């Protein structure tokens, strides 16, 4: 004969004032917003692309002692600092939403940049393909 199953242990009632943990929420203040992060990211990436297009050709012709440094900053410095900064900000609760906005801005910038390029190209060619 097998033993009858033991009754489950009695549940301990929660102490008064206890609230079950809810979903994790980042602190909300004006600086910690997804939209602000996306906006800041799009502006920063837009400036970077503009500077690369405007200054890049000048650098490739120039041969000043600063050229390699500027080329490095334009080529690698900004993307690395942007990504590292966004990751660090995302990992801190106080700036998590802003940092996530900076990361999402990478994808949003692709959309805006391609849309702008397409509009310019369509405008120049006047073609409706």
């Amino acid at each position: 004969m097998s033993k009858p199953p033991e009754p489950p242990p009695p549940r301990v009632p929660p102490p008064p004032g206890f609230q079950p943990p809810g979903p994790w929420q980042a602190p909300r203040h004006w600086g910690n917003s997804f939209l602000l992060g996306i906006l800041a990211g799009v502006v920063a990436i837009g400036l970077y692309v503009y500077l690369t297009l405007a200054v890049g050709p000048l650098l490739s012709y120039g041969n000043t002692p600063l050229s390699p440094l500027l080329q490095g900053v334009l080529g690698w410095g900004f993307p690395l600092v942007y990504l590292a900064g966004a990751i660090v900000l995302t990992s801190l609760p106080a700036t998590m939403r802003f940092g996530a906005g900076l990361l999402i801005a990478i994808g949003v910038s692709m959309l805006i940049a391609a849309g702008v390029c397409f509009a310019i190209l369509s405008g120049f060619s006047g073609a409706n393909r």
Partner: protein
Amino acid sequence: MGVPYAASGAVHGLLVGLGIAAALGFFALEKRRRGLADDRLWAIAGFALAFGAIGARLFTWDVARVPSLAAWWEAGDRSILAGLVGAWLGVHVGKLILRYRPSTGDLFAPAVALSMAIGRIGCLLTELPGTPTGGAWGLVLTPEQAALFGAQAGVGLHPSFAYEIAFHALAFAAMLHYRDRLARPGDLFVLYVAGYALFRFAVEFVRGNEAMWLGLSGPQWFLLIVLPLLAWRVWTVVAALRPARQEEVAP
């Protein structure tokens, strides 16, 4: 007509961007439907997006062709498969940094399928479609487009990107239908990725990508390497479904 916007980076980028926007929108809806209010999920989506964009370029770097990483970054190839690997890595890095434990795959899988279905329209409109079909349904390139791609003009070519759009659209619809019926969290993502891996391996035969070794392209070799892992994961999904079914049948 052939490829109406042959080699247009702007059109390609626009459709990829629209795909990303649609994926983010669907992600928001699905997050709300599942009652997930955790802010860290948006941050993890950001990690996936950023690492996907970087991985798509970085993991395709062909050192023999372009030794400089900077030059590759500026004008090298991009790959959806490399982007997916990058996004997967990004999700795990994000979860590690943010100390988020629950599975997020099921939240991402339909969004990824939707973005791929839209993004691939960009490929269909701008890239070399595929190998000759031998049938009447192929896309025929004009002499100018053929010269641009180094392909044959006046011959029907497999619309391989249209096949892929159809796959992702069907996968998206199937995931919407079955998303709440699988036994464990994360299983939807496993099935979608495994299905795409098999489909992509097959469609590579008509894609027209350069053969890397033994007649198989680079993506096919990558998929062959990850296939055992995917097969094992699919087996665990199916194994988990059996007890769940038996529980449903039992009174």
